[in-house]
C-alpha cells in the first residue's frame, strides 16, 4: 500500500480545505497580522538614551496623550482629511450621477476617463501639483501673462490648501467609484415608480436615489478620509512647514529622524485604532440606511488594508 500524501489530500475533504486556504491565510498572517503585531509590541518598549530596550512600558502612550503635540497633529490631519472628503464628495457625486443616469453612449469610456488618473503613479500626480503651483509654475505664469498679478505668488505652494488640493485630486476617483457603483445598480424602474407616484425629479432624488446611494457615499467618504488622513507624500512635497503637522509625517520623522521607534509605533497604533473605529461606524451607518437587513454594499467590501 502506497497511500501517498497526495492521495490523502485528494480524498479528505477537511485536508483539502486546509490546503486550499493555506496560501491566503499565510498571506494575511505574514503580511498583515504579523507586522501589526510587531508594531503593537514595539509601541510598548522603552527608549533609554536613544537605545531600544526590551522593557515593557506604557510611557510612550502616556507621552502621546500627555502633550498637546500628538493629539493636535491627529486633529489637524483629521481636519485636512475632512476637507478632502467634503470636496471629493461634492465633486464625485454629480459626476457619478450623470455617468449613471444621464450618459447613454460611451458610458464605459467616460468612466475610464474618470478612473485613468489612478493608473498614473501617485508620486507623479503629487509632483504635477508642484509644477502647477510653484513659483515658476504654470498657474503663476498664466496669472502673470493675463496681467492679474505682477510678481509670482509664493502662497500657492507649501500650504495646507495645496495639500488639500492634491489629496482631493488623488482621492476623488476613490470616492467616485463606490458612488457610481450603487447609483448604476439602481433599477430605472424605481425612478419611474417614484415619478408615477407623484414625486417630481427633486423629490425622487431625495426620497429614492439619495437613500439608495448612501452605502456608496459612506464607502467613498471613508476611502477619501482614511486614505488622506494617512497620506504623507503629498504633505511632504506640497505642505512646506505645515507638512510637519500631518500625523503620517510625524510618524515618518519619529521613525526616520528621531529614531524613536516605540513612540512612532504608539502613534501608528492609535491611528490604526481610530481608523478601525471609523470603518466600524461607517458600516453601522450603512446598515441603518437600508430597511430591514444588511446593506447591499458595505464599506467593508471595499476597505483595503489600511
Amino acid at each position, binding site marked *: 500500500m502506497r497511500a501517498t500524501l497526495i492521495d490523502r489530500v485528494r480524498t479528505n475533504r477537511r485536508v483539502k480545505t486546509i490546503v486550499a486556504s493555506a496560501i491566503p491565510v499565510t498571506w494575511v498572517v505574514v503580511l498583515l497580522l504579523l507586522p501589526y503585531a510587531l508594531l503593537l509590541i514595539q509601541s510598548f518598549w522603552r527608549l533609554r538614551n536613544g537605545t531600544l530596550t526590551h522593557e515593557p512600558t506604557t510611557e510612550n502612550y502616556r507621552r502621546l496623550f500627555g502633550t498637546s503635540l500628538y493629539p493636535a497633529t491627529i486633529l489637524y490631519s483629521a481636519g485636512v482629511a475632512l476637507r478632502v472628503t467634503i470636496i471629493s464628495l461634492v465633486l464625485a457625486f454629480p459626476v457619478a450621477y450623470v455617468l449613471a443616469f444621464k450618459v447613454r453612449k460611451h458610458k464605459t469610456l467616460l468612466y475610464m476617463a474618470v478612473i485613468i488618473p489612478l493608473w498614473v503613479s501617485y508620486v507623479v500626480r503629487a509632483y504635477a501639483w508642484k509644477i502647477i503651483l510653484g513659483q515658476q509654475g504654470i498657474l503663476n505664469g498664466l496669472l502673470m501673462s493675463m496681467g492679474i498679478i505682477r510678481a509670482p505668488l509664493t502662497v500657492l505652494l507649501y500650504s495646507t490648501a495645496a495639500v488639500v488640493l492634491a489629496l482631493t485630486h488623488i482621492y476623488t476617483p476613490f470616492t467616485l467609484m463606490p458612488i457610481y457603483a450603487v447609483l448604476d445598480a439602481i433599477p430605472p424602474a424605481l425612478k419611474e415608480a417614484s415619478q408615477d407616484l407623484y414625486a417630481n425629479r427633486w423629490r425622487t432624488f431625495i426620497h429614492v436615489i439619495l437613500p439608495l446611494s448612501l452605502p456608496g457615499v459612506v464607502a467613498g467618504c471613508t476611502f477619501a478620509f482614511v486614505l488622506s488622513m494617512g497620506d504623507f507624500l503629498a504633505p511632504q512635497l506640497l505642505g512646506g512647514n505645515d507638512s510637519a503637522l500631518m500625523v503620517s509625517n510625524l510618524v515618518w520623522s519619529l521613525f526616520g529622524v528621531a529614531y524613536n521607534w516605540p513612540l512612532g509605533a504608539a502613534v501608528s497604533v492609535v491611528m490604526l485604532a481610530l481608523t478601525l473605529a471609523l470603518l466600524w461606524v461607517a458600516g453601522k451607518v450603512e446598515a441603518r440606511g437600508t430597511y*430591514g*437587513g444588511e446593506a447591499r454594499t458595505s464599506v467593508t467590501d471595499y476597505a483595503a488594508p489600511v
Partner: protein
Amino acid sequence: MAIVELHGLTKRFGAFTALDGISLAVERGEFLTVLGASGSGKTTTLRLIAGFDLATEGRILIDGADVAALPPFKRPVNTVFQQYALFPHMSVRDNVGYGLRMQRVPHREIGPRVAEALDMVQLGPFAERAPRQLSGGQQQRVALARAIVNRPRVLLLDEPLGALDLKLRRAMQLELKELQSKLGITFIYVTHDQEEALTMSDRVALMRGGRIEQLGPPRELYDRPRSRYVADFIGETNLLSVEAGRDPGVVVANRAAGGFPLRVGVRPEGVPAGVPLWLSVRPESLEVVSASAPENGAGENRLPAIVRDIVYAGSVVKLHLVLTDGTILVAHRAPSDPPFEIGAGVEVRWPSSQGVLVAD
C-alpha cells in the same frame, strides 16, 4: 365618454417605429387588455400613457384633457410594474403610503388609507416587513396596493403576473378581476399571454408591429378573428390554405389538397374567385371518426387523414392528423373517446359553421 383616448399615437426610436399611429378609446371602468408578442408595441403604449416616454406624434387624452406634454407625476394614472419596482429601503407600509405622501395628503388620512389598501390585498400583517422579505406573489400585491391606494382614474399594469408561477398566476388573475370590478377603476393591462387576456378582459386589443390588429371582446377575437395572425395568436387553431370558389355561395376549394370543396358558414363577401384565403378551424370543432363511419348529415366538411401522433394532455387528447397534401391538423378529443392507433386512416369532420375565413 371614454376615459382614455389615443389619437394617432406614434413612437419612433431612431429609425425604429415602435408604435405606428394607433387610435383607441378606453371606456370608463373597462378592463382593457393590450395583447401582443414582444416588440409589438404594447409596453410602449403603456409607457406613453404613463408618461415615461414621450410620443413622437399623436395625442393622449385622459378624461378629455391632453396629457401628452405632462410628466408622469402630473398624470392621474398609476402603474403596476413588471418587476414590481418596490422601494427596497422602505417598509411595505411606507411603500404603499409613498404616493399619498408625495401628494401631500394629510397625515391622519394616510394611515387609514394605507391600512385599507393593505387589507384589500390581504397584506395587513406584513406592513412592517421589508419588500425583500416577501414572496413574489406578496410583492406583487404590495405593488398593486401602492398603486390603488391613490385611487387613480386609470390603472396601468405592465405584465404584472409575468414573474409568478402558473398556479399563483391563475389565482391572481381572478383576484385582479374581482378587485377591478369592486373598485370600478379602469384597467389597461399589458400581457403577452393570450389566455390571461381572454380570462380577464372586457375588451382585448391585439397588437402587431406597432398597430392594433384587432380590437374587441375576447369572444369576438376568438370566434371571428379578422386575420390569420389573430386566429393563430388567440387560442389554438388549424389553418388551411384555401381560395375563394367560383360558387358565390358557401363553397371554397382547397388548392393544395387537390381542390376538393369545403363549405364555410360565412361567405367571403366581395372576394373574387381564386383569391387565396385561410380557413381557420379550432381543434375542439374537429370530429375524428374512422374512415368507414356513416355520413352524419348535410353542411359538414369531410377530409381523409392519417393519425400521426397522439398527445395526452390531461383533460384532452390531442390528435395530430396528416391530410393528403401533408397539412397537419390538430383535433381535441375527450380521453374517454374510443382511441385510434398511430397510422390509422380516419376522417376529419367539422360543421361548415365552425370554419372561419381569414385573409393572410
